């Protein structure tokens, strides 16, 4: 623990600028190599970082591709509000498609039980959206430090017609050369912040003085206790009889759906405190994502099926 605590103050505010240069380079390659790229926007800090990088890559020009949001209907209202503000602020085109529509069309089936979420269902809507707009490249905010299967992901990750990822057929990526050539029907998922860690993202947000949704900071909220974690109470959460909501001060470390993102007890009201919390945290970021906990190989399985 001693190394970690003394390291906290050395690490704060030290963002390796090389990472930004690398990511901007990737953004420009996407714009140059593909005909119809899109940026998948979730409202979380990683995709907000992507928007910032895209803005910088093409300045003084506008972002030359749309922001696409797959709305599960279970988003935090604060996220939606922020999304609309950011699109207006950057002048980027915003495309929203709804998981509810996929359910209504009978293409996806709502899960049941106390862990029901729409996290898996959004893949259906995403693939339909890709087809609707004929997107050939989708930029996502995944990072290799998040999870083991992600650690092996390429920057340009080729997917087949069904959006599937084949770990054994990945193209080698050498030096900084990116090969985005694809056949008809294939598309590419692009991960410009592959080499960033959670801490890098937070340090960047701080150095760039970026706006982020308010739920990242400590606030009062009705929650329930489940599996040793705090869950935001909402109409979408299937509660058991003994799960009684109570109010406490929390913040979110990652922003997914209300049904699959746990809150942490926190009094962090500004970004410096958030960074200190991360450096001394005992639980990793994806540890607060219930969707990954289903099994050790959960992420890899979802990726094979087209999850980004």
């Amino acid at each position: 623990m001693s190394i970690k605590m003394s390291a906290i103050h050395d690490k704060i505010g030290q963002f390796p600028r090389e990472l930004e240069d690398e990511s901007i380079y990737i953004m420009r390659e996407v714009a140059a190599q593909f005909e119809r790229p899109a940026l998948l926007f979730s409202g979380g800090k990683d995709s907000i970082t992507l928007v910032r990088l895209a803005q910088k890559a093409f300045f003084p020009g506008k972002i030359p591709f749309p922001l696409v949001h797959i709305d599960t209907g279970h988003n935090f209202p604060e996220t939606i509000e922020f999304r609309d503000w950011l699109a207006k602020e950057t002048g980027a085109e915003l495309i929203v498609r709804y998981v509810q529509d996929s359910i209504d069309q009978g293409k996806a089936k709502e899960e049941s039980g106390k862990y029901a979420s729409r996290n898996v269902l959004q893949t259906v809507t995403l693939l339909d959206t890709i087809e609707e707009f004929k997107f050939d490249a989708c930029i996502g905010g995944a990072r290799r430090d998040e999870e083991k299967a992600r650690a092996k992901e390429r920057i340009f990750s080729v997917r087949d017609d069904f959006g599937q990822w084949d770990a054994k057929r990945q193209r080698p990526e050498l030096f900084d050369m990116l090969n985005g050539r694809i056949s008809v029907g294939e598309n590419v998922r692009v991960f410009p912040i592959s080499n960033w860690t959670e801490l890098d993202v937070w340090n960047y947000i701080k150095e760039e003085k970026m706006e982020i949704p308010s739920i990242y900071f400590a606030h009062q909220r009705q929650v329930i206790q489940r599996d040793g974690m705090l869950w935001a109470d909402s109409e979408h959460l299937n509660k058991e009889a003994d799960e009684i909501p109570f109010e406490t001060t929390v913040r979110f470390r990652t922003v997914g759906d209300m049904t699959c993102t746990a809150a942490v007890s926190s009094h962090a009201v500004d970004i410096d405190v958030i960074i200190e919390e991360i450096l001394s945290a005992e639980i990793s970021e994806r540890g607060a994502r219930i969707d990954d906990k289903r099994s050790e190989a959960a992420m890899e399985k979802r990726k094979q099926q087209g999850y980004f």
Partner: protein
Amino acid sequence: MDILRIATAGSVDDGKSTLIGRLLYETNSITKDKIEALESASKRKGLNFLDLSLLTDGLIAEREQGITIDVANIYFSTPTRKYIIADTPGHIEYTRNMVTGASNAKVSLILVDARQGIVEQTARHLSIASLLRIPKVIICVNKMDLVQYEESKFNEIQHKLSELVSKTTFKGQTVSYLPISSLFGQNITKKALDMPWFNGNTLLGELETFEFAETLAQAPARFPVQFVVRPMTEAYHDYRGYAGKISSGTFKVGDEIRVLPTGQTSTIATIEKFENSLEQAIAGESIVMTLSNDIDISRGNSIVLASETDLPSLKDFSAHVCWLDHQALSPGKTYLLQHGIHVTKAKITQITERLDVTQQTSTTEVGQLNLNEIGKISLRTAQAISADKYAENPSNGSFILIDEFSNSTVGVGFVD
């Protein structure tokens, strides 16, 4: 804060994943929930200790077979720097992944099993580290616990290793040798109590003190144009900016430049990074450059200093290649050649040599190059590429070959 990129290599079962797991564990880079997951996974395997290798062996197939089959990127940081480890597999058939993982590395970490000593893979890894001009090699003699931490055993292996190194190394490369035990954390981040006879650095000590002099900024100036920024708005009506990442050298406002391959000249008017104007920019920086007069520049063109007389422009040249595809490279075939961001057609006119990297010998009169083989080829491109010799300016001297029909990246080349 700088970033040090490391590539690890080793044969199957020499404990590479355990070494990386150990580094993460001892630098407090693993959170409590991950350690708990590790504890339960280790227990399921019937082990009574933490199996640190499980931290990086990520894919389902790997967990089943207990081997690493693809490049995994692992991150940790100390107050000194951020580290990115490309963990590459040791199986012979996955040499292509090793080259891939090593392509961005400044340090090559090679493992040798203290009981086995040098094996065929050791020579292969040393050769690849040299082919890729990796400036620092750290050879860890691992599993010292299984040879009772004997100094004589280490000395014997080191002696043989240095003979091998003398055949592969190049001027400017430094090589160090460390006795370690990943399983028991000896000499990883802490001095080895069981090897008091060893006076050198720990592994982390070697990494923390390695200075990779910024030779890149002093190399010839090369700026490949990636994207032309033309906002065409009221405020920026006539604006034309050339966006890209400087591959080597330094550019300053006021520098006279030349565009390749067209040969046109101009002067740098501004160097911009988002809303900031800079006086100069160096290798690795993503910038937008504007010029004092309107000339025709498009994606794939390269900007160099006008004062340079020896211009990088190649159409007929030779190169070393490492073949990455199951379908062999055969002479006469046409591929797409991508140098940086510039893509042009290329014909392989001849395969002149095949290297046996484990014996340091070569064969001539080669029919084809198979997956994982390294050879020397002659080739001709449709358009000239603005590449330097790899040994002189590595960041502007490599290229990839792409199969026109499968679109796969099938080879990587290093200009001779």
